[in-house]
């Protein structure tokens, strides 16, 4: 049986960045439309069964309202709290059920939550959030087809996917959390509304990606480095005050949708897998993939470690080409 899991986050795309930046509200009805096209893409490629995370809006059940599918589409048996922990639990359950691919509808935050639950099943991340580096803006039909080809074995997961890195967040040496793209030391003591936009409070950054074409904090790395980070490389940046410091240099980067800010870079260093960066400020908070998530309580020691233990992600274009070459594509007949 070919089983695919769908985790669609109804809460993504609605945080304070609608107010402090220029993020747009990602309507849940549009998520339903995307989920419907994903389901159609999955069925066309021979997937037998879909298990999905139940949610308070019912994204997948609503997606089923206007289509008739032969494959079985069922909810996971789980209690939903309406928090990001739902996505983590759903990923764990889907891995246990034997899902061959996890389709994730959400932003960086949603993918982070899913990665906390499973990293051994390939991800098909579909962007519906705000600061999105990890997931791509893709057409749902194609995302569904690519995920289906990988799940059905038409294209091998090894060939179709690329590896990703992650950042382990440690408090007093204990693993507390993870990030897929960026971890920021933020000079505040409250998690508050979670998103970050005040760059004067960002003191240090640790990145798995550094691209000027990214939106969010990892773009700062792209502006500095002017090259891609290798698969075994990360970047550590120490920032200073724009007003008080004359050391280092200034770069301007798109740190949130519509928010292009200057920052003063005091120091930057490429880091290797296994390297651990200590954060010396406490109390403070750490933002993970753009959201304040971890408190560093007074007297505690926080650090960030680069790892290559991120989920493997389906490369849609490569998968579709390989599917053509492997004669798996539908519609090619006499």
């Amino acid at each position, binding site marked *: 049986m070919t089983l695919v899991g769908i985790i669609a986050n109804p*809460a993504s795309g609605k945080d*304070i960045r609608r107010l*402090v930046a220029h993020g747009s509200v990602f309507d849940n009805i549009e998520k339903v439309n995307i989920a419907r096209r994903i389901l159609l893409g999955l069925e066309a490629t021979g997937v037998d069964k879909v298990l999905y995370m139940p949610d308070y*809006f019912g994204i997948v059940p609503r997606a089923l309202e206007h289509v008739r599918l032969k494959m079985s589409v069922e909810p996971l048996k789980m209690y939903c709290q309406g928090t990001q922990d739902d996505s983590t639990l759903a990923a764990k359950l889907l891995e246990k059920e034997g899902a061959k691919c996890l389709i994730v509808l959400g932003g960086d935050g949603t993918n982070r939550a899913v990665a906390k639950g499973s990293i051994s099943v390939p991800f098909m991340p579909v962007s519906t959030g705000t600061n999105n580096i990890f997931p791509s803006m893709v057409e749902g039909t194609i995302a569904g087809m690519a995920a289906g080809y990988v799940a059905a074995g038409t294209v091998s997961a090894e060939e179709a996917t690329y590896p990703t890195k992650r950042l382990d967040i440690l408090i007093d040496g204990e693993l507390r959390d993870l990030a897929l793209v960026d971890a920021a030391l933020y000079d505040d003591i409250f998690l508050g509304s979670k998103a970050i936009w005040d760059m004067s409070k960002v003191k240090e950054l640790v990145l798995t990606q550094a691209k000027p074409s990214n939106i969010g904090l990892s773009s700062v790395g792209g502006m500095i480095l002017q090259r891609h980070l290798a698969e075994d490389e990360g970047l550590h940046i120490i920032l200073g005050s724009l007003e008080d410091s004359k050391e280092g240099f200034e770069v301007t980067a798109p740190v949130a949708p519509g928010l292009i800010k200057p920052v003063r870079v005091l120091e930057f260093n490429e880091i290797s897998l296994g390297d651990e960066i200590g954060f010396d400020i406490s109390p403070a908070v750490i933002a993970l993939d753009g959201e304040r998530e971890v408190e560093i309580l007074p007297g505690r020691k926080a650090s960030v470690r680069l790892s290559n233990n991120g989920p493997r992600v389906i490369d849609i274009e490569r998968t579709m080409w390989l599917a053509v070459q492997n004669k798996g594509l539908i519609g090619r007949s006499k």
Partner: protein
Amino acid sequence: MAVEKEKLQWMYKNMLTIRNFEEKVAELFAAGKCYGFVHLYVGEEAVATGVCANLRKEDYITSTHRGHGHLISKGGDLKLMMAELFGRRTGYCKGKGGSMHIADVELGILGANGIVGGGFPIAVGAGFTAKYKGTDHVVACFFGDGASNQGTFHEALNMASIWKLPVIFVNENNLYGISLSQKKSMNVPDVAARAAAYNIPGLVVDGNDVLAVYEAVQEAVKRARSGEGPTLIECKTYRYRGHFEGDPTVYRSDEEVEEWRKKDPIPRFEATLSQMGIMTEEQMEKIRLEVSEMIEEAVKFAEESPWPSPEEVLEDVYA
């Protein structure tokens, strides 16, 4: 988010004041000492507190049928409020209005409101006044998820958007309009999504996290004071008690209530204050005692206050 220690302490004391006031009212109502309907705010304290912590005395609020928390947060006098619930002459409405008509214009409290969605036109009017007079006053308009299905909601957002009025529309989404689940009354889960129809920012915050509410409203107030117009902030929250006192709450499960109790805004804030070294347990206990005394004094004041006389029955009646 820089918040002064004094403000954090005020937030804590204010949330406790609301909780204790409401729990005392529940007790007194059951004992037959309060009159009329009361709709209690237990569980939603973080919303009114986080909003009003951003307001000045001269700013305005419009409230709802579940208004005690809003009034307390904007500086309402506990003794006058309690006396009103007791139907005494010393109350805010001379004992003739009850819970849903308490107002204090001097404090910018433009009234609790017995009509669902009744606060919207008043808020827009107050916002228009601020703009017309060239002040930088802002208006916080509290309303529930049920009210967001009323015509006044849509008219108010439309007008506030067109005229860029300094109104912060604060939706307290406690998941139920009386006994009707939001799932059965709306085909979208987020009231905030409706902001897009009026070209204003709309966002969702954790309404049980006072600091999340505070930070979001802080930004919305900045936007309003600088003439950029209204914002819609949806605070996801929950009321632990029924819609009204006496409501058997057969429309929701005990498990659901228990899940929300785990997210109770007061213990959450206590943990943050304690872990971050802002307040000690001793300091918090001192505030608990102060609040308890304030509530007892308000009850004593109400109990000892005179009843309105029969001769006053037609005074202050306008329609």
